[in-house]
């Protein structure tokens, strides 16, 4: 069986605008405005998924763009702009979560030690069948920060396991475990079960 490649291949509004970047670097306010218009909605959604509240996401979006403006000269043009953008955003959001110390030490322990129940394939299939995107988004906010961040990095930003490992500060081999654990938490939340096992906060 040929597996389908999951995850987005591209993100809306993320067209590479090399020219605008070059002009924005040179201090062209209009080019900067263009970059903002093109990328702000996607970055806002990223923050909205990764951070607990809407206000947090709004603040973070502004802060990320302030930071981008300062760091624009450091951007390596040979690489993807949107990927770079998401790295900045991910760094910022993860830093916010870390600073708030929402991430609990216990969580790491859980992920590393607690065995995961093998799912019944048919039941899982059924659960996925029944749930809407909206319900998934709601459930996402019941997850612990790291689980949520891992899912956002993988399925929103389309980051590789290496990149996720780098962002979250875990070993590369551990990323799959973090993602799987996050999915289990999500399934529990979707089934209406408590996600407290992972120390999730709404």
């Amino acid at each position: 069986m040929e597996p389908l490649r999951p995850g987005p291949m591209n993100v809306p509004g993320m067209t590479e605008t090399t020219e605008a970047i070059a002009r924005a670097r040179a201090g062209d306010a209009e080019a900067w405005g263009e970059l903002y218009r093109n990328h702000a909605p996607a970055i806002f959604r990223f923050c909205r998924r990764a951070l607990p509240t809407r206000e947090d996401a709004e603040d973070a979006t502004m802060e990320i763009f302030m930071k981008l403006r300062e760091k624009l000269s450091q951007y390596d043009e040979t690489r993807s702009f949107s990927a770079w953008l998401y790295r900045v955003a991910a760094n910022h959001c993860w830093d916010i979560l870390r600073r708030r110390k929402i991430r609990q030490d216990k969580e790491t322990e859980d992920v590393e030690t607690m065995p995961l129940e093998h799912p019944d394939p048919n039941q899982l299939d059924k659960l996925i069948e029944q749930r809407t995107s909206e319900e998934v988004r709601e459930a996402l906010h019941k997850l612990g920060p790291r689980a949520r961040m891992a899912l956002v990095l993988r399925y929103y930003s389309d980051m590789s396991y290496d990149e996720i490992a780098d962002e979250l500060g875990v070993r590369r081999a551990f990323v799959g475990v973090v993602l799987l654990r996050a999915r289990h938490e999500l399934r529990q939340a979707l089934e209406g079960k408590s996600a407290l096992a992972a120390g999730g906060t709404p």
Partner: protein
Amino acid sequence: MSDPANPVSQEGPDRTMNHLDEITCLMYAERQLDRERAQAVSAHAQDCAACRTLLRALERESRLLTRAMLEEDEPLPARLAQFQRHTGQSFQWIWGLIFGLAATGVYALYTEFIGPWMGRLEQAGLGGTSLLSLLIVQGAFWKGWQSVITLFEVLAMLIVVGFAVVIFRRRISRRGSALALVLATLCAALALPAPAGATEFRHQDRVTIAQDEVIHSDLYAATGRLRIEGTVEGDVVVGAGEIEIAGHVLGDLISSSGTLRVSGQVDGNIRSYAGNMTIKGKVGHNVMIFGGDLNIDRDAVIGGSVSSFGGHLTLDGQVQRDLLGMGGAVTLSGTLGGSATIRTGELNITSDAVVKGPIDFHGDNPPDVASGAKLASPVHFEKIKHEENYRNGRYYVWRIIWAAAYILFGLALFKLMPDFSLECVGMAERYGPSLGLGILAGAGVFVGGIIACVTVVGLFIGVCTLFLWWASLYYAQIIAAALVGQGLLGRTRENWPLIGRMALGMVLIRLAFALPYVGGWIKFAVIIWGIGAIALALYRRLQTKIPAIQAGAAQPVPVTAGPAL
């Protein structure tokens, strides 16, 4: 947890065969397995319906997740759309303007103040041609009051250093190390000692160098009372309540004391911070005094020039070169070989006076010149205008230049220490504690610094403390300006918007300082308030270090700055 390296490991619900574990399925679906393991999984899935279902479910789950993530469920909030307009605006021309003004300001400062001052200093025997040579080559800081750094120079220097650091920050890569570099450079510059050979240290209550005693080196002393009857072949650097030089000092005398009497002979220069200084003997070179009164007795002969800053100056003896008097009243009864430059206070010239050079006097009242005085030329008198000349265009130009310099200084500080600046502004919102602590810190640190300076052993620490205290007077105004700006435009946690608010606030408070009568008081209050805020922020930084470690992980901490990319 199963080992993802072993794809066929876990016994599933269907007991007829070993099923793939979930992590292996996930990694296969995510294309994270190597070719060999991926082929093994693929082969197994073709034969096993349960695992095929699991794989398909995981893939569907991935798609659901992706869809849920990417769906454009919320429009961009209005606040962010507005922010777009803000970020779209370019403030570069403003910074260009400020830089331009600053450049003009530095040039004007140099030609109007620093240049003439340097000339004066050179005239007074401080042959340094640049601040750098004064500071480093001559080890002037170490030698106490040898250098007079004007407020302008240090401010200009700080701005330049600050900007250099901001510009090169990327190369230095970390903000902390940049700051450390600046401080280290400053410390290195300050710590460079004068190239002294052998030195003698005395540290007793009362030090007397007896008549037949000869010290073949420099003498460093910190004491209650110092009396030199013998000979010191090097310099004398001393902090004491009372100093009497009855003997012979072949080098310079650098002192900080309550009273200083020189009845013997000093071959070099005298530079003193003293309450009262009397010279009866001979001084080979120049005399400079800060703070107190200076009496040059009838028998005294000074080979160089005399500079007095602060107290009364009475000249009965002989000064072979020029005289510079600033601050107090000046009485001329003796002989002056060169010119006299006198600013403020009063000038009395008695009938015994002989002045061979021109006399330039800026004061409140015309000089009192006795008819018998022998002057080379009449006194050139200029009345000091105490009120600011509001009609003069230059007054406004200078106001603008100063405001720009402050904004630049603030910009450099806010960029160098964004978190700390933000904390200071936050602390400044607590008016009561800020003002109270400001009075305490403002006075206490200054007094502490002076005390450290007076005891020669602590001179370096003392000078550093005073330097920091002095810098904090400016930083305080910047903090207050940022708060005023915040009051008008609303709070912000971001660096650049905060700098913008600071710039606006600075313009406003500088306008307030310019108000007649109340301006000075406003300035005083602003400085006290700002210093209090800085002290509070410092206190909190030191305080929170320990509780932060002890506090539970769940305790949220406000975000103050972003991460390093």
